[in-house]
C-alpha cells in the first residue's frame, strides 16, 4: 500500500529507510517547539494506570467486555482487556454483583483525575467547557469526592482543596507548585500550574476559604459557590444575579427558562429593572417578572460579595455598590439593605421541580447553599450530571422516573456520596445496555 502510494506520488526513488525514519520522527518537526524535544520523563501526571500484560490466547467473555464498558464509563479511560482489574470485575459481574464491580473502577485514580474532574470543569466556568483550566472549584469537587464527603457539603462547607507539596514530595513528585495563600486568593496560578499533577494523590483539604491576604476564613462560605473561580466567573461586574442563575444552572440543572414563573410575587425585584419597558407593563408582567421575581429574591444572599478582578471582596454588613446600579430606572423597586433573601421559587410551577426542604427565607450565601443542597432538585441534578458523564448522553425526559428513583437512593442509601452514585449509575440498565 505504502509502496504503491510512494510510486504514485513519485517518491519511490527515495530510500525507504529515509521515508520511514522521517515517519519515526515526524512529530518532532510538526508543531512541537524545539524546547519541547527533551526526552526525559516529566515527573508528574496521573500516576495511576496499571500496566496490562496482554494474554494473546485468552478467551474474552461477554462479562469481561461488560467490565471494560463499565470501567471506561466510570473512569473515562480504557485499559487492556487482560487487565487484572477487569478480571476481578468480570468475576463479580458473573455473580450478579455489578455495583461491586463498578467499585473497582471508582477505586482507580482516573475516576477522580479524569471523570469527576471533567464533570467539575464544565460546572466551573461560564462557557461550561471541559477545557476550562484546573481551578479551586475543580480541585474542591474532586477532593470532596475522593474523601467521600457528603455532597451537600459542596454547597455548604467552608473549605477548599489545594495541592500539597508534602504529599507530592512523599509521592516522589518533583516540581510542586508554590503554596502561598495570597497567590491562591488572588489568582488561579496555583491550580493552573498544577494541571498535570494527580489530584487524587496531591490534594489536601484546607478548612476556611481565604478572605484576605492573611488567610482569614470567609465568614459566609458556601462551598463551591464561594470558590474563587465560581466567583470570578459570575460575581465579576454585573449585579450578582448571575450567581443565582448559574448556581441553579450548575447545581439544580435548570436554565433560567426552565424555572421562570411569572406568577410569583415581585416584591424583591430591584430598582434597575424597568417595569414599563415599551411603554406598558405587559412585557414586565409576562416576561421580565418571570425570571426577576425569583432571581432577585435569591440575589440578596450575595449582597456583601463581589469579585474585584483578582480576588473575592466580602464586606460584611455593607451592601456592594453593584446592588444600587441603575437605581433610577424604577426608584420604587426593592432596595437591598442586607443579605436576607426570600425563596420565591416555591410556587406550584416549581415546587415539585426543586423539592425544597428548607425555610422559604434565609440570610447569606451559606443559607442559600443549604437551601439548594438539601433540595430534591440538587440530588436529581447530581444524578443527571453523573448520568450524562458516564452514560455518554443526558437522561431523556422519559427517564425522569429513573432519575428520581436514583436520586432517592443517593439520599437514603448512598448518603449523598457521589462515588456510590457513580457506581449505581454506571451499572443501571439505562446507562450501558447489556450486550450493547
Amino acid at each position, binding site marked *: 500500500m505504502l509502496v504503491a502510494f510512494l510510486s504514485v506520488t513519485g517518491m519511490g526513488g527515495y530510500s*525507504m*529507510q529515509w521515508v520511514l525514519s522521517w515517519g519515526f520522527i515526524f512529530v518532532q518537526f510538526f508543531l512541537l517547539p524545539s524546547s519541547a*524535544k527533551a526526552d*526525559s520523563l516529566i515527573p508528574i501526571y496521573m500516576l495511576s494506570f496499571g500496566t496490562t500484560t496482554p494474554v494473546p490466547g485468552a478467551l474474552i467473555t461477554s462479562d469481561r467486555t461488560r467490565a471494560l464498558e463499565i470501567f471506561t464509563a466510570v473512569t473515562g479511560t*480504557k485499559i487492556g482487556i487482560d487487565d487484572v482489574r477487569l478480571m476481578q470485575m468480570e468475576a463479580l459481574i458473573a455473580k450478579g454483583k455489578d455495583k461491586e464491580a463498578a467499585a473497582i473502577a471508582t477505586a482507580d485514580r482516573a475516576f477522580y483525575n479524569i471523570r469527576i474532574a471533567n464533570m467539575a470543569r464544565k460546572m466551573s466556568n461560564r462557557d461550561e467547557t471541559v477545557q476550562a483550566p484546573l481551578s479551586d472549584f475543580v480541585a474542591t469537587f474532586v477532593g470532596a469526592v475522593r474523601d467521600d464527603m457528603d455532597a451537600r457539603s459542596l454547597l455548604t462547607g467552608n473549605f477548599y482543596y489545594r495541592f500539597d507539596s508534602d504529599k507530592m514530595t512523599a509521592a516522589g513528585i518533583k516540581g510542586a507548585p508554590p503554596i502561598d495563600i495570597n497567590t491562591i486568593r488572588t489568582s488561579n496560578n496555583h491550580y493552573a500550574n498544577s494541571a498535570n499533577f494527580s489530584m487524587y494523590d496531591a490534594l489536601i483539604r484546607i478548612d476556611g476559604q481565604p478572605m484576605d491576604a492573611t488567610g482569614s476564613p470567609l465568614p459566609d462560605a458556601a462551598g463551591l459557590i464561594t470558590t474563587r473561580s465560581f466567583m470570578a466567573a459570575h460575581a465579576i461586574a454585573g449585579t450578582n444575579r448571575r450567581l443565582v442563575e448559574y448556581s441553579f444552572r450548575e447545581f439544580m440543572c435548570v436554565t433560567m427558562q426552565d424555572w421562570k414563573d411569572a406568577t410569583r410575587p415581585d416584591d424583591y425585584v430591584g430598582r434597575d429593572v424597568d417595569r414599563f419597558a415599551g411603554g406598558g407593563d405587559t412585557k414586565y408582567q409576562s416576561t421580565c417578572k418571570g425570571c426577576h421575581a425569583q432571581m432577585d429574591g435569591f440575589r440578596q444572599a450575595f449582597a456583601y460579595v463581589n469579585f474585584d478582578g483578582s480576588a473575592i471582596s466580602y464586606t460584611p454588613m455593607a451592601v456592594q455598590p453593584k446592588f444600587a446600579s441603575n437605581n433610577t430606572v424604577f426608584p420604587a423597586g426593592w432596595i437591598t439593605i442586607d443579605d436576607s433573601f426570600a425563596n420565591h421559587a416555591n410556587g406550584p410551577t416549581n415546587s415539585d421541580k426543586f423539592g425544597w426542604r428548607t425555610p422559604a427565607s434565609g440570610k447569606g450565601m451559606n443559607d442559600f447553599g443549604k437551601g439548594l443542597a438539601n433540595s430534591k432538585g440538587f440530588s436529581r441534578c447530581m444524578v443527571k450530571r453523573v448520568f450524562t458523564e458516564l452514560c455518554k448522553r443526558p437522561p431523556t425526559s422519559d427517564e425522569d422516573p429513573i432519575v428520581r428513583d436514583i436520586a432517592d437512593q443517593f439520599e437514603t442509601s448512598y448518603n449523598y456520596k457521589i462515588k456510590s452514585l457513580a457506581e449505581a449509575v454506571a451499572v443501571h440498565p439505562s446507562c450501558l445496555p447489556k450486550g450493547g
Partner: protein
Amino acid sequence: MHKRRYKIISVLGLITIGTVLSGQACSKFSGRGASYLETSTGMVEVTSNATLKIANSEEILPSLISIAGTGAPSATTQSGYDSWKTLYSESGNANSVNSPMMLGILNLSGEVCNDLIKQELLMPMASRRVFTKVNTDATTGDSPSTLSAEVKGDFIRRLARLAWARNETPDELSSIVSALDVFKSDMTKKDISLPLLFTCSAIFAAPETHTR
C-alpha cells in the same frame, strides 16, 4: 524542501495505514446507534443501541497512556498533546469527529507508541508486555525485514487486545502484515523500532481505540 516533502509523506503514510484499518473493519467504529455508518469502503452496519462517543480532549491522552501502560508521558508527548489539544473533540460526540482531529489522534498515538517502544526495548524480552518476541540483541537481533510472521502476529495481537479489547481479525492481520512488507532488507537492526512504531501507531490511532 526535501525535509518538508518527507514530513508530508511520512504523515500520509501513517494515515494510509489508519485508513486501511478503519476502512477494512479494523476500526468498525464499534457500532453504536443501531444504524449505519459511512466509511471509506461503504456503509457499515451499526448493531448496538448504545450511544457512541469518542474520547474527548481531556480523556484522550490519559486513555492512550492507560492502554499503553507507559505511566507518565515523555516531555515530547506531553508537549505534543498540549499543542494539539484544541484539535480534539470537546464533547466527544460522534458528529464532532473531523480530519484535523484524526490527524491529531494519529500524532498523539505515534508519540505514546514511541514512549512505549522506548520503554520496552530497554527491557529484556521476558520482562516486556507487548514486544515480547522481538529480539533486540546487538548480535543476533531482528532487523525490520527479518521479523518473522510469528513475531509480527504476536505483537499485533497484543496491541489489538490492549487497544481494541479483542483479537484482530484475519483481514486486519493480513492488512497490517502486508503493510509491514515496506521495510526492506537495507534496514539494519538499529531500525527495529520502526516497524513497531508503524504498527502501534496504526492500531492506537484507529477510531475503535477511542470509542466509548
